[in-house]
């Protein structure tokens, strides 16, 4: 067993891990190690060969691999230590990281601070319990994307997609471009789960039917998938039997949600939020366990990588402060609560005494699509201020700044609450 000591260990070399490592380095922590289980850095970005990345952060349109490469270059320039093909097996609450790879064998790393950046995984057919058989050809959209864009194989040529998450929309277009017949994208809800631009650019531009209020009610086929049965659902999302129809297909791609990968976090006793599936964090993205931070999709599922970068820089900067001992949390916090129509807000709490910050971005999602909304912030029931937006969709994260001076003006507040409501008489 190899024993190592590092100021900062970042678990995961995707966009979150890369940005956090880079930021911590730039804040003066040079002894940084990234542990990545895949054979290359970049996380899921290398397989996202479509464009649309970086519009917010770089103010230009990049592909996934290009976006990743910029951060990979940054990290390499800084001599940040990178271990590829390295699987982390355990993290303890006193920040010991146990990992393994083929070259060095078993590693025990004592870390000054840990950034959790393991990303998320896709919800599967089994998890949503679609009835029917278990043939080949039923895979998640992300796995299909990996097969197509990394491995060089196309899963099949008659495709139905369940779920209108972004990866599902992207893969609808990708399969079409490969010459497959993409028969339909079915979405259980009355609205799509992905970004509007993906609905337009991936479905509408290619005449791929989007069937809202529809779901797959049976999987058919013994060896390979032969057909799927789809049905319309009622307002309680229950399938209406009379509407069932069978579509011939050899491939069913699932884009039915992403789940933060927190199995390691749990081993370190990190407390998770039921709503996000990720850790409960303060504004520095520090979890309940001191010196363990979390950012990116392991914390909550993001729609744009640009937000992952921003959030991970916050985590990296705070990890650096923690290591340098220039920031110690007091645990005197104000809770941030999700009010009407808000499914969650990150961070879940804010340290009241925290030095030199100017504003704290609050990340949130609405629970249902709304138009002409007011985003209202309250402190202990009293309205602080509000913003207006033309619309709000569950698939698109909203970032609302909370100014430090607003916080300073409050006398030991217990709770900040955010609500998003449609304007009266709109």
């Amino acid at each position, binding site marked *: 067993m190899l024993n190592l000591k590092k100021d900062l260990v970042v678990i995961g070399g995707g966009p979150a891990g890369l940005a956090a490592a880079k930021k911590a380095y730039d804040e003066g922590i040079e002894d940084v190690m990234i542990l990545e289980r895949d054979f290359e850095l970049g996380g899921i970005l290398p397989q996202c060969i479509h464009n649309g990345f970086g519009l917010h952060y770089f103010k230009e349109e990049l592909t996934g691999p290009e976006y990743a490469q910029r951060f990979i270059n940054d990290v390499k320039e800084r001599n940040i230590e990178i271990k590829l093909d390295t699987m982390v097996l355990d993290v303890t609450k006193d920040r010991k990281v146990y990992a393994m790879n*083929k070259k060095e064998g078993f590693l025990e790393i004592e870390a000054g601070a840990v950034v959790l950046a393991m990303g998320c995984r896709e919800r599967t057919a089994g998890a949503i319990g679609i009835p029917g*058989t278990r043939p080949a050809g039923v*895979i998640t959209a992300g796995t299909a994307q990996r097969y197509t864009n990394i491995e060089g194989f196309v899963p099949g040529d008659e495709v139905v997609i369940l779920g209108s998450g972004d990866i599902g929309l992207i893969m609808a277009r990708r399969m079409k471009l490969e010459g497959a017949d993409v028969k339909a994208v079915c979405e259980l809800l009355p609205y799509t789960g992905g970004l509007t631009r993906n609905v337009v650019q991936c479905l509408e531009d290619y005449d791929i039917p989007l069937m809202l209020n529809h779901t797959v009610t049976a999987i058919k086929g013994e060896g390979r998938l032969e057909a799927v049965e789809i049905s319309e659902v009622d307002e309680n999302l229950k399938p209406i039997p009379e509407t069932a129809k069978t579509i011939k297909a050899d491939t069913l791609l699932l884009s039915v949600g992403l789940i933060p990968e927190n199995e390691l976090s749990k081993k370190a006793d990190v407390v998770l939020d039921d709503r996000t599936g990720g850790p409960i964090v303060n504004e520095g993205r520090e979890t309940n366990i001191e010196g363990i931070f979390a950012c990116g999709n392991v914390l909550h599922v993001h729609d744009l990588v640009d937000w992952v970068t921003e959030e991970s820089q916050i985590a990296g900067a705070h990890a650096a402060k923690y290591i340098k001992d220039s920031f110690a949390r007091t645990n005197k916090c104000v809770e941030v609560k999700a009010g009407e129509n808000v499914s969650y807000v990150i961070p879940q709490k804010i340290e009241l005494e925290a030095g030199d910050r100017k504003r704290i971005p609050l990340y949130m999602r609405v629970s249902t699509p709304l138009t002409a909304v007011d985003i209202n912030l309250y402190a202990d029931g009293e309205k602080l201020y509000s913003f207006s937006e033309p619309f709000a969709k569950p698939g698109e994260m909203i970032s609302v700044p909370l100014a430090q001076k607003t916080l300073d003006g409050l006398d030991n507040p217990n709770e900040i609450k955010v609500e998003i409501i449609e304007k009266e008489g709109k």
Partner: protein
Amino acid sequence: MSKKYDVIIIGAGISGCAVAWKLARYNLDILLLEKEADVATGTTKANTAIMHAGYNADPDKLKGRLNVKGNEEIREVSKKLNIPYKEIGSLVVGLEGDDLSVIDELYQKGLKNKVKNMEIVDRDWLFEHEPNISRDAVKALWAPTAGVITPWEAALAMAQNAVANGAEVKLETAVEDVLTESGKVVGVKTNQGNFAADYVVNAAGLYADEIAKMVGIEKINITPRKGEYYIYDHAKDFAVNHVVFPIPTPISKGIVVTPTVENNLLIGPTSENVESKTDLATTRAGLNEVYKGAKKLYPELDLRDTIRVFAGLRAADDTEDFVIEAAENIKGFVNVAGIQSPGLASSTAIAGYTADILRDEGLTLSEKKDYIETREEPVRFYEMSNKERAKMVDQNKDYGQIICRCETVSYKEILDAINSPVGARTVNAVKRRTRAGAGRCQAGFCGPRVVDILAQELGIDPTEVKQEEGDSQILEYKIKQLLGSKVMDNA
């Protein structure tokens, strides 16, 4: 037909594998035939995975006689063959409003079948030992000798031990006819040619009646009886400590709630006769029934963290008993049919009983001098401590690369699964042997890696790698192939 075998066994499910294992200790040439690409792909791969204690079955039936014997034998067999087995005990729980007299009847039946150490326990005992059980629980029959086992691993272990002792296993070999001459078995005709033998054992599971008909036996009639299940991730934070049954109905033991050996929670099965022997489809109604049934015993159970739904088919004979007997009309043909629950729990006893029949039919059973009793324990990284893992990686760096992150399965384990006797040829065969893909992401991450390793080790193209049986290829085309481009040649 060059070589002549002493015994050909048709079907490599738990029964066929157990018979092969039992017979391989004797000076016999044995051939085990399986139509699918792996052992244990029928009823053996989709059931409740329980070693029943033996109080359910009628003492006058074969089921009643063989279950307790099989249950007793598995303790030693599981150690020798390194089959994952946990003797966690079972409970038949009576709730308020149930016919509680059934519990006493089962207890009496258990005594007749010589089930050891049973007790009737009260609600206080239940609340202490099964804390999540319904508050309506009144009392239960506790049978501490019941356990949970990995059924496909049991079948594989027996097949591998049989091979170590000289038996042959041929996969993807479907029997098309049983060959006879003047009232006596002489071999079988398969899609891979003919094989000669003096004795043929019919352990064809759901298809045992069809095989029996090949020699003119009409009395066996197998009805596929479907059972549907949900399985949960082992990370689910919900304690169930025993195999927990409701009060049984005349046709079924009801919806069971049980941990598996690997600590996944399993709920099911339904019990419904179906038309087709290939109808392995779960249904909305069936799954709802499973959930409802499980909720009766565990009201706080939810469906969060379920990772898979599946259905299995019981091979139920009209007699509702095991049919293990020599054919009357044809010499050298033995049926091992109608092996439904408690078939898994009875498997070693079924094998012993079958060996006795074969001996009575004239087969000489003399034990080999160099008979190998044990199977080497496969490395199971997921159940090791970090210290043990570190030691393994020091010995072989291929253990250092984790392929399946959910279940912590290393590259070396997958290589071993493919290259050991009765090796894995399909993605599901790798999954059964190593648990790669059996976790919460259901092969989302490791699937492409496993396909790649299988292709490399078997020397085939990734587009030829199958998930399980038939045309179950996972990847149909190379990139750009659908567009008729030549780019794919470079892919």
